[in-house]
């Protein structure tokens, strides 16, 4: 019970104070998890890889995985709820409050300025993701194909990811069987 409470509180604090999602949160999660001996320092790589392998927000997956390691399914639910409750409450308050605020030209102007900052932040994230994705030159056209299919509304992005997943898993599975 005490462990569950600690899990909840630690991730609650994290959800309350951390901006920027995955990249900013991961080092902090690592510190907390190692300090409470929920994982060993050497296991951290494994946590990060699995969190990226599963869909969803990476920081939430991390909470999920660490909770699971510590206390099974109930642990993962508790850690995850701890992390998402603060942002959910904050956004709900803002979303309801903003409905009328969005009519003020000052607020709209502030948001327009902020969007430019968001764009720069995203742009920087895209560059580092690109370095990770394009490890060989022949990979570039594949990204451009998925880009083009969405851009010209031939396929929706969800279907592209779903089909890619099936094709890639199928291909790897087949090449594994033939290589035996």
């Amino acid at each position: 019970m005490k462990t569950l409470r600690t899990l909840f509180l630690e991730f609650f604090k994290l959800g309350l104070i951390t901006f920027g999602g995955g990249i900013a949160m991961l080092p902090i999660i690592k510190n907390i998890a190692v300090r409470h001996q929920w994982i060993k320092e050497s296991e951290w790589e494994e946590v990060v890889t699995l969190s990226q392998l599963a869909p969803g927000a990476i920081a939430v997956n991390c909470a999920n995985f660490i909770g699971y390691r510590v206390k099974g399914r109930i642990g993962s639910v508790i850690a995850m709820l701890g992390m998402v409750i603060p942002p959910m409450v904050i956004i709900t308050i803002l979303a309801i409050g903003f409905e009328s605020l969005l009519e003020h030209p000052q607020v709209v102007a502030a948001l327009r300025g902020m969007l430019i900052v968001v764009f720069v932040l995203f742009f920087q994230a895209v560059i580092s993701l690109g370095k990770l994705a394009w490890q060989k030159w022949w990979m570039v056209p594949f990204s451009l194909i998925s880009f083009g299919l969405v851009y010209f509304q031939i396929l929706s992005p969800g279907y592209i990811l779903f089909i890619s997943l099936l094709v890639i898993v199928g291909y790897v599975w087949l090449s594994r069987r033939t290589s035996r």
Partner: protein
Amino acid sequence: MNLLWLILQFLWVGSLTFGGGLVAVSLLFDVFVTPGLLTEEFYYQMITIAESTPGPIAINLATYLGVDQFGLLGGVITTISFLIPSMMLIWLLYPIYRRHHHSPYIQAVMSGLRVMIFGVILIAIVRMGLTVIDEVIDLPIASLSLMIVTGLLLPTLKNRPYILLMIGAVFGVLFF
């Protein structure tokens, strides 16, 4: 639009958001903006707010969209629907992953998927870029100087993006 449709959309998006927030931005654009349920302008206002508040952007965006469509309960439902697929997958994948995490096949699947995902991420940034270009044409000096200031401060303020966003808000109020 009904609640069941909304739940299904978020289950679908939640099970396909491989590679973090920007993928969710792209997928949710397709669910809400492409069919005309939300304007692009309002969607970007949501993203700006989601990025300026604590928590992962995908979660914030899911809550915001839910509250916008169905009020308080809507936000809870969309966020939980978004979370369920990844939670179940981690429970399912964990035992398999423990045994095979050194397998080159898992690495191969991941790097293959990353290439296709990157195309979907590019969509998000190009679409947003088009909106930003409109802003630059409208107010070239203010927009470009804000971009340059943000770009210069970014390396030092990487872990405190809210300071950059505050600068953006001040710039917006003063010059836009």
